[in-house]
């Protein structure tokens, strides 16, 4: 009896695991399918290719590139894009070593020497031609809050710096009231939430505070938080913390603020409060200074920008590619994928998951650059 029952359980477990694996492999067939389905879709997208692109780099663009790769796979079933979100530095290292086809990075290739190496030069040596930084994903960081009765909040970098470094401790502080005339602020205590894990979001937000309000934010930009408050794990943790705490405030990727229905502060860098939306982010990216030359579209986002209507706290991530590669086939494939990445369809699809689409001016430049890859 006992043994029989054991047998039944074992077979149940077996069937269960087979069913699960079946689900897993189902997903894969979408991207791994052979050329069979490809002939039909080839008419839909002439740039389809059969093959695999290996990409490594920033975790900030992981969701975006995976979303776009899935969309790309819908029309080009023979193409597989593998993205390994091991971090920007690791991605660039692998790219220079020739281990991956292109790299994703939070920052453009460095043109100044660091640890005795210049990234841009090294990449150019590997490629045999200049390597280009192509901005494709923009991720805004929201200053999200939850204060009962306050559904509109303006912040200047100085006040934000004071809040996040614990110098302002209540919501009705005169400094906050002064920039929010017309809003009744309660005497609730301010509860700052920060990311307890090391995070690129923390790094970018502290970069912003340091650049826009050096007098109010003493810390150096870093992946770990050195301001005040209580730490929560990952974006989901800080968003949940603010959601469940009256008086809570945090910095978090836009999508998390949206999903949790948190208030998002308008940021006033000096030219009036700017709300966070696709348009204001686009303005900031469009007015960013291009530091690369020609088709190298390395941008310098000015965190302290006083451009009217530009939301200043953004993260632009790049795809780093060889302008001319040795392997024509791979270059062609990269070109096809990036072309799709820059298309309106792909940019729209990543807007739904909390990134901002490229503004038209930048998109045109990006398309020109991608066209020039050979």
């Amino acid at each position, binding site marked *: 009896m006992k043994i029989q029952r054991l047998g039944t359980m074992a077979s149940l477990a077996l069937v269960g695991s087979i069913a699960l694996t079946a689900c897993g492999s189902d997903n894969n067939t979408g991207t791994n399918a052979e050329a069979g389905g490809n002939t039909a879709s080839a008419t839909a997208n002439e740039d389809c290719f059969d093959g695999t692109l290996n990409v490594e780099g920033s*975790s900030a663009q992981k969701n975006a590139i995976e979303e776009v790769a899935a969309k790309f796979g819908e029309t080009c079933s023979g193409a597989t894009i593998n993205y390994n979100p*091991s971090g920007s530095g690791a991605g660039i290292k692998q790219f220079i070593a020739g281990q991956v086809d292109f790299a994703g990075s939070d920052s453009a290739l460095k043109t100044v020497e660091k640890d005795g190496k210049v990234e841009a030069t090294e990449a150019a040596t590997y490629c045999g031609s200049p390597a280009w930084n192509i901005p494709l994903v923009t991720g805004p960081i929201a200053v999200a809050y939850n204060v009962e009765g306050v559904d509109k909040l303006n912040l200047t970098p100085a006040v934000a710096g004071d809040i996040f470094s614990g110098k302002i401790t209540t919501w009705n502080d005169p400094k906050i009231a002064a920039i929010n005339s017309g809003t009744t602020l309660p005497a609730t205590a301010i509860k700052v939430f920060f990311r307890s894990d*090391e995070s690129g979001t923390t790094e970018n937000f502290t970069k912003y505070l340091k650049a826009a309000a050096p007098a109010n934010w003493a810390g150096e930009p870093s992946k770990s938080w*050195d301001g005040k408050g209580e730490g*929560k794990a990952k974006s989901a943790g800080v968003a949940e913390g603010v959601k*469940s705490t009256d008086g809570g405030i945090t910095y978090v990727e836009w999508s998390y603020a949206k999903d949790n229905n948190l208030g998002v502060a308008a940021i006033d860098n000096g030219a009036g409060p700017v709300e966070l939306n696709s348009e204001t982010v686009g303005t900031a990216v469009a007015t960013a200074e291009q530091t690369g030359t020609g088709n190298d579209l390395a941008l310098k986002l000015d965190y302290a920008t006083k451009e009217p209507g530009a939301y200043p706290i953004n993260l632009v991530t790049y795809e780093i590619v060889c302008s001319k590669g040795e392997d024509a086939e791979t270059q062609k494939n990269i070109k096809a994928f990036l072309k799709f990445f820059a298309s309106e369809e792909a940019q729209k699809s990543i807007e739904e998951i909390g990134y901002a689409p490229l503004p038209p001016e930048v998109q045109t430049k990006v398309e020109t650059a991608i066209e020039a890859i050979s």
Partner: protein
Amino acid sequence: MSSITGHSAIDELPTGDGRPPLEADQAGTGRLGDRIFGGLATGSGILVIALVTLVGVFLVWQAVPSLLNNDANFLTSREWVTAGENPRFGIVDLLWATIITSIIAMLIAVPLGVAVALFITQYAPGWLSKPAATLVDLLAAVPSIVYGLWGLQVAGEYFEPVARFTDTVLGWLPFFTYTGTPSAKSTLAFAGIILAIMILPIVTAISREVFAQVPTTHKEGALALGATKWEMIRTAVLPFGKPGIISAAMLGLGRALGETLAVTLLLSALNASESFNWSIFGGGETFASRIANDAGEFDSAQKTGAYIAAGLVLFILTFIVNAAARVVIERRKAFSE
């Protein structure tokens, strides 16, 4: 006795006629099965021992280079900077949070678990004890993230008044001061309570099994001598079950020390400039929660090594606690036999 394939002294008959001793188990039936089973059992035992040893070796291997690089005292520093050329990291905060949450969990779960086990085995009527036991066992099957989410989103808010009340009554003790930050559900105390619920089924199940083994003659003897039910439990059931209770507590403690997901969800980390305090109504991170939290950013061997060193401390801590428990159980045995 030493063999596990079926030879034993019992099979050997003392014979005085000078012929060679009987080779036991020459009988054909069951010998192959015996051998297979014995082999499997030995193999499993060796496998587990080898695994634990290998885990230990791996931890030490990975941790040592980072520890040698560490500019701060690993055992006494509160800093946690693991990257860069001059890493400075220490485990004081982690150790404190890990130990205090586990102690709180044990203080709640062990008495409660033993009481539940006594109820099921001694007090509950027959029709109730089986379903009650099953229900408690079901608690063990709930994934830990569910406890975490439940604590965070449901139970947490009811802990706020408890924390405030404890602060007003016992706030003069540094252990019980509550400043209002972090919110009560993110404190070490609340994490300890959730851990207690998680280890309760382990403690209950093992204690129950042991209590059920108490010889009826012991119990009836006690009752016959005029003991009340409580006196019978105190003099017959509890002493008999003590080693079992200790084992149960140790298994539970092991889980509490190493629990990751629920704790990561609940606890609020301290910011870098916050000073150390003894309050159980403060934030913090345990070994397991910090490692889990940062695992996505292990980009250099130096950094990984620092976290593995923290993991090594947890490993050693668990080892020490278990060894201590063994000693206690052995001593008990010596007295009761």
